[in-house]
Structure formats: C-alpha cells, structure tokens
C-alpha cells in the first residue's frame, strides 16, 4: 500500500482510556498515573509523631468547624444568560 496514515495528531502514541467511560486523561496526571513507575515508593523520612505532638496538632487544627454554605442566592438563580 503506497500510502500511510499521518503521524500528526492522534497518531499511535495515544492510547485509548481504560476507564469505565473512557472519559478522562487523568490516568496520565502525576498522582493519578497508572504507569508501573508510579507504583514505586521512593524512600521518605516519615516522622512518627508522639502523643504530645499529635495533641498539639489536633488542638491547633480543630478549634472550630469551617463555615460551609451551599445556598445559592435568589439573585444568582434569576440571572439570565
């Protein structure tokens, strides 16, 4: 066959998603990657906290629940686009 598909664009390097809906390229994102290399666990210096340290962290981090609102104003709901 004298002709060949162009390697521009889609080409052979792109692989089809294996996700349920074929819907996202997140598999290539650093933290969502599915490559074998991404399974390797590099050495990390993980500190094991003492009970006193943990108490101090929790005391600092949980003084009050952050306010969270999902209410949408009626002005927004009436906005025309």
């Amino acid at each position, binding site marked *: 066959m004298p002709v060949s598909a*162009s390697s521009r664009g889609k080409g052979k390097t792109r692989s089809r998603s294996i996700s349920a809906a074929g819907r996202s390229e997140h598999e290539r994102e650093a933290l969502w990657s599915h490559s074998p290399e991404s399974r390797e666990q590099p050495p990390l210096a993980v500190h094991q906290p003492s009970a006193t340290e943990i108490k101090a962290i929790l005391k600092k981090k949980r003084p009050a629940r952050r306010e969270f609102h999902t209410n949408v104003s009626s002005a927004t709901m009436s906005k025309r686009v």
Partner: protein
Amino acid sequence: VRSKDRNRLRFVEFSSENDPLVRLPDTRQVRYLRRYLTDLGSSVVLIEPRYFDRDYLAEFSAYHSRSARAYSNVCQRVHFFALDRDVDASAAQALLEGACDGHTEPYELLQSAYRGFCIVRPIAQASLGRTVVAWYPDDETRPPRVTASREYVCHVAGLPFAIDRGLAWQQQDEAVSACATVALWTMLQSSAFGPHHWIPTTAEITQMAHRGGAAGVRLFPSAGFRVREICDVISQCRLAPIVIEGDRDDGFTRARFAKTCATLIRSGYPVLLSGHLEHSSQSGHLICATGFRAAALPQLEPGTAMLFDESIAYVYVHDDNLGPNVRFEILDDDGVSAVRLKPSAPTRRPRYPADLKDPVGEYESFVPTELITAVHEDMRANPLKLNEVATSTAEILAEASHLGIAATTRFMPLAEYLGSEIAGTVDPHQKTLAKLRRALTEADQAMSLHLGVARLASGRARLLDVLYDTTGTASQLAVFVSVAYREDISRVCGSLAESGYPEFASIVAAHGRAPRVR
C-alpha cells in the same frame, strides 16, 4: 446522472475551493474550526451530501419548517482526515472504495487518520451543526491535559469511524437556541452520565427550560435562560444540578475557580461557566469548560500541605462564539482582580491559509461569576466540601509526619476505584491487590455507588487515598475508609486515630504486608 453525482460520497482537498467549510460565510466560528482542523493536520475532506441530523431535525420541526424561506431538512456531513500529504483526494477515494469493499488495510488507514466530523446545516446564519473533532496534539508531555471527553462513533456507508476523545460542539442557531442551550447540550453529552442517560436536542432543551411556564414569552426564537431554568433542565434529565457562586463580589478567586473546575472535570463532569465578557457586564454568557492543563507537582516545605489544583493555568472551553476546545488562560492579576479567562492559543502553529484571519485575537476576556454542573442523582457531595476536607486532612498528616504533602481530589464510581484505579496504583504481585480489593469490599460499612477520593502524596510518592461517602448532605462528607500506600504512613495514621481523629480511624493498608481494617 446529475442527481447521482450530487449524491456521491466524495473526497475533496482540505481548504480547497471544494471544501464545504471554505464555501461557508466567513464567521469567527468557521475561521476557528478551519484553523483547528489545520492544526490537526487535516488533508482531505469526505463529503456526505445527504445526512439527516437528529438535532437539526428537532430544530426544523420546532421552528424552521414553518418559515417562508423553505428550508430543507437535509444536512451535509463532512469528515476530516489527516493523511500523508502525498495522498490526494483521488487516492483517498480509492482507499474508501477499498474499505467499502471489505478490505481491512485501507479502512484502518482511514480510521487512524480520522479527525472528526461536522454537520453543515442548510441555514446560512448558523451553518455549523453538531461538530466532533479530536483534541489537538498534546505537545507537552507533562503535566498533561485532562479532559471530560467521550468516544463518538459515526458510520459512513456502514464503515464505523471513531473519535476516541471528544465532546460535541455546535454554533448557536438563534432561532431555537441561545448560548446557554448550546453549552447545556454540550455538557449533557458527557459520558460521565453513562449510556442510560438521554441526551436532549437543543430544541428540546429550550422547551424543557420553559416547561414550568414561559410567562407569556415566546419560546422560539429563544431569548436565553435563567440559572434556575438551567437547573430545571438538568433535573429533568434525571441528573442533579450544582451551582457554585464566586467567592468575590466580582467573581472568583483563582483558588476556588481552579480547584473546583479541576475536581469536576477530572471526575468526567464538564462545567458550565456563567458570566459575562469583560467589557459587557450587563449581558450574560454561558460556556462549557471541557478540560484543563494539569498543574505541576509542587515541592513543598516539610510540614506543609496544599491542594495543588489551584495552580492550573489553562482551561479548555466550548464557546459557541468561537468553537470547540478553545484554550483560555486563567488570569487574576496576582489576586488583585477576579478570575478572567483570556483566549490563548498555543504558540506552535502551522501555516494557515492566507484568508484565515485570527478568530480569537480580539475576542474579549470572559469573567466567570458562577459554575454550574450536572452530577449523578445519587451524588449529594459538593466539590467545595470535598476540597475543604481534603486540605484539612492533608494539613494534619503533613504536620504529623513532617512531610510536604500535595493533595488532589475527584469523584469516581466505586467500581472504577476498585477496578482500574487501584489496579493502576497497587503492585499486583504478592497478592496485595487481591487482599486490598477484598478488604475494601468486605469492610464493615458498604460504600456508596460514587466516592469522593482525596489522594495525598509527597513528591511522587503516594501516601494515602481517603474515600468519602457522597450520599450524605452537601455539608457532611463522612470518611468510609482510607487506603495507605506505605507502612510508615499507616503507623502515623494509626497514631492519629488513637488520639481521636476520626478521618484516620479506618485504615486499609495497600503495601506489602497483609491489609487490615482497624
């Protein structure tokens, strides 16, 4: 014989005088699409002279059929192929003949060169109907572009041609639709909603938006929708609307805008951006974000954490004023102003035909003021809440472990997490994967159909997946279980749990030793 010629499936050279796009009125959308297809390397165009398009037939039935202009109900469908430059239209025609005759090789050549299709409607003021084109080449290998796309398959003379990732776009036909109709229509095409969801036509969307009462206003021509009418259409499609307002008086901060868009798009949910053009604050506009360029992994100081999606620089948008997959840069003047989106084409471009003026150069920036999306009905969680609890958990783990921790979030079906996701992240040897799957499936609490997932990492080392229940109220996001990828992190989580921190109370180990549920 003449009639037979007129109906013939035929190839023509791309951008030649016979190319149907070249013959259309010179609009910004036509210029954008021609440039886009040039970028995809399109070399020849296959014309299907007669095509009955579902969306156009609905528009025709709702409006055009009663026009004195005697519009036709038949469209053209044109397909774009990027074959080598030495394959002209007649060689492509020979390939098609061979493929139609059942030969595999010419068919596979055409399929591998296939870049998409466009319906050309017989209405001069808005000729570009349903258009599905491939994403243009992702030049940057890292970080990648992330899109809420799906597969489209169309058939020409019984031959299937597929676009593996795309999302349909069309030009606004003012008779039956507004920008909101087209953006909604694009969003509802997303495959995140699965094969069991009905995708309405643009005419049906307009009718659905006013089902509650058009208050004496004529439906067609359409004058646009209110936000509550958009939510109503989403609900009628058996999906759940989420509306997120800006956190500034004039719109969004970069952090809220970028993190929310990234979480939703990564989850397969396109996001409607409601707002206005920068210098026209009185007239609203609605566009659909279909992708974003992922942010680079940050190097963080020990003991600190961040949700690094707030650093994304670009979103990709279907804008009925421009075209599909338009790249917009996220600008906020270092936090001084609200987020605005400026069209920003990638720099590396081939030479365009001389008659093609830049379609986006003078286009105004867009200022988003609300985000609207449609999620599965059973999913009651809000992306703002997911990001808030993920940040909080990452901060605590960072402080306890003295690591710099980057967090990222998404929603996903439980089956996908237990299936392809952990198969891609956990070493399948030594039965770790099998034990993890059983531990998660047999845990005390059965998990919901959709999960909120927060992934915590230090550099490239995965530390922890926190799996959240998405069926509670929007402001409550309970943890089902957390999956620890390292033994040292399991131990830190265990210490935190013993001190009364519930987010770390149920840890499943996904590392070498046998997984156990505490």
